[in-house]
């Protein structure tokens, strides 16, 4: 492969991986607090639809992204309500967000199918969200590991009883974590419609929400490793795109299966090879009984 081609693939990987990274970071914060959100896909869809609609309506992609972030936060807070307050099964609650996300995003985006917008401008090769992606990961790392809030949050994901004994409120911390997570998930979705494809279609996230969940495990719940993971998966997608553009004879259906299979494999491998990298209170949801 010539250097210019590989550079192009690298650029493409970075662009593909950006929305993944935001979504992964968002899910990671929630999981660090002990909550797994299966509805991330729905969250991202809401972000994509709202971001696109707002950009079109206001003419400003920045407002669009902001609106998407807000919408994502609202979605996650609904989820938080049934999980934290009502103590519902986390996996079933994630499904709720999934359905809501699919339905709401389809309805919001319906008038905008086929519309093209001018999305986020590029500075150099990348738009602002790409430039901010790694700094966001660093910010998350700092928040989680260097602040009192992050410490308490990580403790909630390990053992809420201990946090309660220390005089904090685990449920409040979980709400806060999920709010941040929703914000990031919404941004991740918005990047797809407002910067990547510059269009909206029903279900356009195509499973990225699930890949993000796998990436959180792959990254061992560490924001810095998430960057690497998002790059790799972004690269896989970039490769797939360039293969298809080059006329390679692989069925798109088989290619589209890859994210889900990969996620499943990561999960099985992790289940087989369990090391205590996961927040302790989280593990139960993944393996068996909650």
């Amino acid at each position, binding site marked *: 492969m010539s250097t210019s081609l590989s550079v192009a693939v690298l650029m493409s990987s970075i662009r593909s991986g950006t929305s993944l990274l935001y979504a992964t970071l968002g899910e990671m914060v929630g999981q660090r607090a002990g909550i797994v959100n299966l509805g991330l896909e729905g969250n991202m869809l809401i972000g994509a639809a709202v971001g696109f609609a707002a950009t079109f309506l206001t003419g400003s992609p920045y407002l669009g992204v902001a609106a998407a972030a807000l919408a994502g936060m609202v979605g996650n807070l609904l989820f938080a309500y049934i999980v934290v307050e009502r103590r*519902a099964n986390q996996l*079933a609650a994630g499904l709720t967000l999934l359905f809501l996300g699919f339905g709401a995003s389809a309805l919001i985006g319906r008038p905008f199918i086929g519309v093209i917008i001018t999305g986020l401008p590029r500075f150099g090769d990348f738009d602002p969200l790409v430039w901010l992606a790694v700094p966001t990961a660093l910010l998350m790392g700092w928040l989680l590991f260097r602040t009192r809030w992050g410490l308490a949050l990580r403790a909630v994901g390990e053992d809420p009883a201990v946090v309660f004994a220390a005089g904090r409120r685990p449920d409040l911390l979980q709400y806060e974590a999920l709010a941040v997570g929703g914000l990031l998930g919404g941004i991740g979705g918005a990047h797809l419609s407002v910067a990547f494809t510059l269009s909206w279609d029903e279900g356009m996230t195509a499973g990225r929400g699930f890949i993000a969940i796998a990436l959180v495990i792959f990254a061992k719940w560490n924001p810095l490793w998430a960057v690497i993971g998002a790059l790799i998966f972004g690269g896989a997608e970039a490769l797939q795109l360039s293969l298809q553009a080059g006329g390679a004879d692989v069925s798109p259906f088989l290619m589209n299966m890859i994210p889900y299979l990969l996620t499943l494999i990561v999960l099985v491998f992790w289940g087989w090879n369990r090391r205590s990298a996961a927040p302790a209170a989280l593990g139960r949801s993944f393996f068996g009984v909650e």
Partner: protein
Amino acid sequence: MQRDFVMSLRGFATSAARQGALRAVAVALAALAIFALLLLADGKDPLHAYRDTLVYVFGNAYGFSELLVRMTPLLLTSVAVALPSRLGLINVGGEGQLYMGAWLASAGALAFPNLPAWLLLPLVTVSGFLGGALWALVPGLFRAAKLVNETISTLLLNYIAPLIVSFFIFGPWRSAESSSYPQSPAFVDAARLPSLGGTRIHLGLLYGLVGLALYALLMSRTRWGLEMRAIGGNPEASLRLGIPVAGYLVAAMTVAGGFAGLAGMAEVSAIQGRLVANLSPGYGYMGFLVAWLAGGSAAGILVMAFLFAVVSSVGDILQITQGVPYAVVNLLMGVILFIVLGQRGGGRR
């Protein structure tokens, strides 16, 4: 005598039947409200639209028969959720299991076009069951081995199954007939489930009703049902009592998948007559909701499946006549699930 009356009312008030009835009403109201909002947003008159729609659905025989057609896959996919739920398993994979049942059934139908109906139809039926069963077996094994929770694995497999079907339709099974979208060749008549009169009601409805009845009898009257309910009630105690918990987990998932597979088989054999790409408008997920709303009871499933058939019909008609997108049904499902889970302890099984 008055006292007796009051007591019996009180009994009804606290019974599960009352809860179920309330839920059904809540679902209906939620649906009506959401559809109405959308119609209003579009500048249309909801009451007018409803009247027309309901007249169509309930007012003529064909409309009503369509309800039964829609109810059929729901009966099967909801048993696919209800059965494992009695053991404490959450099977969201009805959609994928449906597709894989359709796929294997199609394989059977396409491979043996020359068999007589009395051989081919059972073969296709069994294949449908097997396809769904195998697709659910894998998550079942993962769960029994404590590797991955079945909610996650079945959900992921839901995305993979339609892709497999599409792969075959666009590839090895692509019909030679030119058509606006790819599909498999049509099945021979021998592979098609017979239907009733001029309607589209087909033998699949019988599969659904029999399946539901078998499920109810299994759980309430057999020793396997008792042991399964024991596992759902207290897995630790069941283990100590010598019940083979892991075996039951796998068996329940597999049989459940088979039921959903039958739904897929019915779709391709009776309704479509061939394997097509978009088989299901979410029957698997709707079955999930039906089963949860019904609390796993067979009578409840019957009622809720009918209700969802109505909702789905209304949604379809509104889409055609009023331009309301079908995605609203997804939204509706999300809202319903939200309400159910939002009740105190509503999500913990």
